[in-house]
């Protein structure tokens, strides 16, 4: 039995040791030859062809697949411990879904105590844990959730302290959360987190190799460690050996329509997707082919508020997410509400689809806008036609072509519910922070669900080790972020993906670095 190597990342005062400099190790590295462990169907070309490489083209200490939140966080941790780290990224830009994500980060606290400063009520790691478990219908692995909620604040501080991350002075209450804990970075897009992490990683010598796709994972037998990967850059195929560990941080499979259909046929091919084009599931299959277990692959989340035509999640599409805590109203084309705005993403998405009339709309007024996004985002959204603005509710209804009288009555009733502290229609938990929509100008934003996040993925343990089908960790193999499953259960709460990926990325990178060099 191997020793447990769990280590929580150090948060304060991490000393950055100097990193081994220079080119990748030269020389042909003996691999021992033999047949690679291979679950391909017997008799297929793949099964016959997969022999372990006779020699390796390259060797690195820690090899990371994917350059989003999890991969960059793992790289920063491993390299700060003196390991030579290489990230393989199959796309032409780094960052995966992370660089285009909404820039939201769920955390019960932060070093500046923004929630407390804004007098937005109580929160705790326990409360964050309870919300996450409930939001996932208790399919979540509680041990993983505990790590995420407990490490989220320190990891946020870590990025601010060491990566130069800057946060806005707002905290939002998003669907499924009982506290104002969704924090937004200044740029309002995940790029501010990826830039902070990339800066930390590159400071200690991490290299990112773009347009390089993994095409196989090498492992010799059911007991042994992963040995390395086969990867293709352009026309060249290379076998890259690991000296310490391999980390999969390769994201979800939202753009892999066939895989979506394999596990959840209810999400038809025509459903839009917020993800970047590289979010396909091949790395999950490569891991499975060498014995890795996977779980809950049918749990695929739709983002309820994507741009209706293309399915993108632009900066405008984050407004509806930040809105529920301050009284934003969602209406259908009938002019009526169709869901509790504070409900979870799966509930909001199902309810929208059930209206059977695309799109639905987020409704808010001028007074709410500073709490929904930056002035620049609002201006840009108006310029490009995403936000529709009118001086009166009647005009707004006319512009989006919904029945004006029904719509006016919906808003009037909702204002009354806020005053009464009770929502008899959808039982929304009313709070004192919710604002009635009385004065103009008024705004509408069209929205429609699109595939957003894969809750399922590779099975990992608390050390971020990938676990095999017999529940044993696969030696030297780690996974973190969306490629791993089990943290979010059946439904991820908005803004939990970022802390999940970064917290477990750090754990994976820390433990990967601590592996002894392979003989």
């Amino acid at each position: 039995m191997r020793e447990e190597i769990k280590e929580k990342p150090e948060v304060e005062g991490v000393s950055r040791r100097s990193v081994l400099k220079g080119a990748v190790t030269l020389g042909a590295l003996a691999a021992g030859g033999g047949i690679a462990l291979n679950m391909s169907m017997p008799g297929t070309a793949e099964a016959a062809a997969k022999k372990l490489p006779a020699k390796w083209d390259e060797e690195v200490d820690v090899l990371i697949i994917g350059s989003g939140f999890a991969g960059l966080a793992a790289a920063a941790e491993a390299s700060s411990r003196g390991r030579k780290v290489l990230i393989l990224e199959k796309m032409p830009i780094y960052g995966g879904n992370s660089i285009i994500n909404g820039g939201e980060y769920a955390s019960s606290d932060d070093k500046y105590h923004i929630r407390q400063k804004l007098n937005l009520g109580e929160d705790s790691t326990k409360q964050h844990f309870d919300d996450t478990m409930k939001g996932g219908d208790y399919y979540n692995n509680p041990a993983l959730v505990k790590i995420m909620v407990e490490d989220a604040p320190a990891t946020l501080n870590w990025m601010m302290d060491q990566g130069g991350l800057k946060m806005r002075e707002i905290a939002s209450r998003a669907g499924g959360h009982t506290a104002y804990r969704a924090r937004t970075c200044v740029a309002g897009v995940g790029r501010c987190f990826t830039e902070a992490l990339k800066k930390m990683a590159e400071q200690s010598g991490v290299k990112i190799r773009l347009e390089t796709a993994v095409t196989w994972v090498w492992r010799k037998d059911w007991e042994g460690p992963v040995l390395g990967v086969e990867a293709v850059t352009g026309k060249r195929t290379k076998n890259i050996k690991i000296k310490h560990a391999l980390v999969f941080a390769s994201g979800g499979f939202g753009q892999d329509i066939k895989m979506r259909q394999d596990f959840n046929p209810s999400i038809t091919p025509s459903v839009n997707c917020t993800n970047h084009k590289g979010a396909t599931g091949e790395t999950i299959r490569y891991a499975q082919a060498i014995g890795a277990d996977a779980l809950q692959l049918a749990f695929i989340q739709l983002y309820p508020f994507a741009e209706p035509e293309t399915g993108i999640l632009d900066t405008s599409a984050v407004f509806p997410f930040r809105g529920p805590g301050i009284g934003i109203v969602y209406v259908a084309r009938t002019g009526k509400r169709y869901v509790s705005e504070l409900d979870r993403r799966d509930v909001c998405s199902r309810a929208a689809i059930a209206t059977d009339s695309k799109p639905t709309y987020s409704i808010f007024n001028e007074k709410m806008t500073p709490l929904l996004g930056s002035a620049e985002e609002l201006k840009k959204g108006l310029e490009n036609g995403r936000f529709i603005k009118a001086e009166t509710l009647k005009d707004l209804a006319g512009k989006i072509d919904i029945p004006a009288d029904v719509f006016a009555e919906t808003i009037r009733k909702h204002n009354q519910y806020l005053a009464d502290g009770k929502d008899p229609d959808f039982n929304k938990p009313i709070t004192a922070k919710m604002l009635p929509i009385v004065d103009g100008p008024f705004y509408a934003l069209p929205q429609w669900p699109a595939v957003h996040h894969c809750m399922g993925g590779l099975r990992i343990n608390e050390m971020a080790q990938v676990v095999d089908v017999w529940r044993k960790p696969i030696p030297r193999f780690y996974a973190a972020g969306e490629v791993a499953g089990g943290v979010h259960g059946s439904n991820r709460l908005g803004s939990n993906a970022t802390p999940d990926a970064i917290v477990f990325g750090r754990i994976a990178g820390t433990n990967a670095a601590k592996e002894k060099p392979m003989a």
Partner: protein
Amino acid sequence: MKRILLSIFLMAALLCLHYFVAGSRTAEAAKPAAASCQACHADFTSVLPKGHPPAKGTGLAACTSCHAPDLTGIAKKNAFSSRMHTAHVGPKGSLDCTACHTWVPNKRFGLIGQKWSWGAPKKEDMDLMKEIFISWANSGHTDTLHAKAGIVCTQCHGKELPKADDTVENSRCLTCHGPMEKLALKTEPKDFKGRNPHKSHLGDIACTVCHKGHRESKVYCLGCHQNFQMKIQGAAKP
């Protein structure tokens, strides 16, 4: 064992010529030959620009004695090497590289009558070089746009023979096309100022994400923003 440097393809300075028709040559063939240009150019005066002083001799040395090959890799338009390659590659001519170049597989690659070597390309490297040169002359991709402007390999790739997985750094592109802010102003749409491919939410990305040197260029934005109206040069064969 020393890892063998993978593939070095192009180079910059001179002529890659009838290699294109003849295919690979052996080491013997790469010995410094007579390097006479007379087979095609009985008299250099027919190909020299107006006012050019008469060239002495019949070989390459007649040119290189004045036009020293560019060993610095500077981004200069219409350098001698660009002119020579443009004249002899692709639709305008089909000569083997070794008409002017010396190549000893895995050992050296230079210019007839000169001692330096740009590297040690293998056969596969030479094959790739051939492929890239044909693309440069004919494809209509970004490489051809540069060929038409008198830009040859070194001006983008620097003085070394580029490796097979070589890329071109933004700073290199911006030597001619920059600075970035000025470039971004040029592509700012009148209607939607935020939809500027050179100033996007992706931050600082490589020019080569969209602008591919030797294959079809594509607007990366359109992968997600399917309703944007954006065009790119070098998108397909003209």
